[in-house]
């Protein structure tokens, strides 16, 4: 970060109590006129010490709390914890469980992407879009509730597979939900992408330079908005993604507009993937036979596992030491890169008016940054 003396400036705290900030964090900015000269992110307002908590909980007790790490999209956390521990313990999960996990992950991505699209419009004062997209997200949450019993936190993916099989007639109702979302998409396009003011506000704003991508480990829509087809589902495939047909959406403006475009394309791809899963899902058991959870011990080992969340690459670093508890877990969410170093790098030269739009365009998720 450049530490240079500023002659005339106003110091401004954006957050933690600020409607334009994502979640509960704060950005300290030094402004000259309307232009930000220097910015620093401050986090810790949502810190719960998850990494300490999982160290003193058994594996089966650890899995319901990790989904709290990212509230809009909890399933990626559940998948990474369970899959990482399965890898360390050498458990193979049944084929149907893999498909069901992919289904849940993709549904969660869809819900989070739809929400982010509305959030993006909401930061610019377009109040109609968030109202609609939150409702669309709510329809997906209804399906989640049917599947797992939970609206926001699902705790559906469990060691060895998933917690239960899909209910009777689930796919028909899911198809109906997808149709509802698809019907709404043209109207959303009309409101967002055909909107002259939205174009003016987002094009050329919040530039992420393409050379930063490899250097900083930028991923997800932020990287894909710079024209780099980085998608963990494609480049480092997991679960049944290799068997599925989908496109990696890219745009090459490097600005908020391209990230929004990528997100819009992601919605369609997610719907396409979910349809494929519904068609191709095999029969069979949904969960492997597992050892007694109260006595389950995993041999010493360490691993780093990643998956594509709606925001980018989500990684879990896990260390086991032969006991029945995790030795260490560290969560490297996409926001860990996007929210601190990248945001601080983007802030100088930005207009105050564009700060929250820039943050939301990268979907920074504070609970994932501080856990």
């Amino acid at each position, binding site marked *: 970060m450049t530490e240079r003396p500023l002659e005339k400036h106003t110091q401004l705290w954006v957050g933690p109590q600020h409607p334009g900030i994502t979640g509960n964090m704060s950005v300290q900015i030094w402004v000259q006129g309307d232009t930000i000269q220097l910015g620093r992110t401050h986090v810790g307002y949502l810190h719960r010490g998850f990494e300490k908590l999982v160290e003193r909980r058994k594996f089966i007790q650890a899995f319901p709390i990790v989904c709290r790490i990212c509230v809009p999209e909890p399933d990626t956390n559940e998948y990474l914890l369970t899959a990482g521990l399965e890898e360390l313990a050498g458990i193979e999960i049944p084929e149907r469980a893999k498909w069901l996990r992919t289904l849940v992950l993709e549904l969660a991505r869809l819900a989070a992407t739809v929400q982010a699209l509305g959030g993006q419009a909401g930061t610019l004062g*377009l109040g*109609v879009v968030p109202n609609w997209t939150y409702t669309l997200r709510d329809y997906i949450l209804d399906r989640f509730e049917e599947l797992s019993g939970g609206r926001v936190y699902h705790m559906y993916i469990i060691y060895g597979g998933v917690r239960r099989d899909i209910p009777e007639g689930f796919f028909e109702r899911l198809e109906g939900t997808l149709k509802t979302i698809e019907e709404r998409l043209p109207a959303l396009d009309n409101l967002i992408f055909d909107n002259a003011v939205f174009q003016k*506000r987002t094009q050329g704003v919040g530039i992420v330079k393409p050379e930063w991508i490899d250097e900083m480990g930028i991923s997800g829509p932020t990287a894909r908005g710079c024209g780099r087809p980085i998608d963990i589902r494609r480049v480092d495939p997991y679960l049944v993604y290799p068997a599925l047909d989908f496109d990696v959406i890219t745009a090459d403006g490097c600005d908020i507009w391209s990230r929004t475009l990528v997100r819009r394309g992601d919605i369609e791809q997610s719907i396409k993937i979910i349809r494929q899963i519904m068609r191709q899902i095999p029969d069979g058991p949904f969960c492997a036979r597992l050892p007694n959870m109260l006595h389950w011990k995993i041999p010493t080992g360490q691993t780093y596992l990643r998956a594509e969340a709606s925001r980018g690459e989500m990684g879990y670093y896990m260390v086991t030491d032969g006991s029945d508890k995790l030795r260490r877990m560290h969560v490297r969410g996409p926001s860990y890169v996007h929210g601190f170093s990248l945001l601080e790098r983007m802030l100088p030269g930005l207009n105050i*008016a564009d700060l929250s739009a820039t943050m939301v365009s990268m979907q920074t998720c504070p609970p994932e940054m501080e856990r």
Partner: protein
Amino acid sequence: MDTLLHVIVSLISLMVALAYGLTTGGVVRKIMARIQGRIGPPVYQPFIDLGKVLFLRTGTHHGVMFILGPVFRLAGAAGFYLLIPVIVGVPFLEGFHFSGDLLLVMYFMFFGSLGMALGAADGGHPHSPIGVGRGLAQMTAYELPFGLAVVAIVASSGSFSVFEIVEHQRAAMLTKGVLGWNLFQLPFASIAAFLALLGMNMYPPFNIVGAPTEIPVGPATEYNTAFQSLQMSGRAIFAIAKVVLFMNLFLGGAHSILEAFIKTFFIYMWSIFVGAVFPRFRPEQSIRFFLGWPTAAGVLAVALILWR
């Protein structure tokens, strides 16, 4: 005796304007909610809000100017409203008009905001000066097309009095009917003024002053409780005064309460229909907008009048 009666009737008219302004605010919230797919609050919700903020207690004190800010705003709005005729032909509802009152009216439009600017600066919150800066810059920008439109109207009617401008339109209406309105007589001036009205009403895309995700509520950040109620009522009266002025300048005034009601309602809703589905401009984009086509239309209107 007549003066006393005039004052009493004007005060009642002011109260009616307040009630009408609040109701219209409720209607706006309802319409916005409907567009967003919600049921929305009841139409009388602004009255409850106003009552509630009156029944709050505060201990905040930021100096004399801070207290005077909303008072100036209310005074500016009330003065603005009382100077212009509401219903032409009904005694005591023609306002305290005199020749040249249009100049004072345009001054009053600025006055309330300037008072708020001074008061908000006393609040000490950094969002206030940023919001004030944005607001004054935008105001200067939309005053230009509006001023040009007013110049065109004044040149065509030959008077600086709102009342006489209405009379002029009524005379034209005798021969041309509805086409005698300035709206149709001076189309370019109307374009300039109605685009400027979008900025005056502060609905999207021009709500840059209190932009909630950028500088939450801007100048009004520190104003709570009774100050907020003064501000709410000032805003309601100001909104109505603006549409009444526009009705007088462009829509040939009103001769009955029903006519005034219909005309003002549609002028008010014009900025809602435009703004409901737009995001917000950045400040400099907003200023550039007003200095672009609206100003060109205003210049054209003045040029046409001079050429004619």
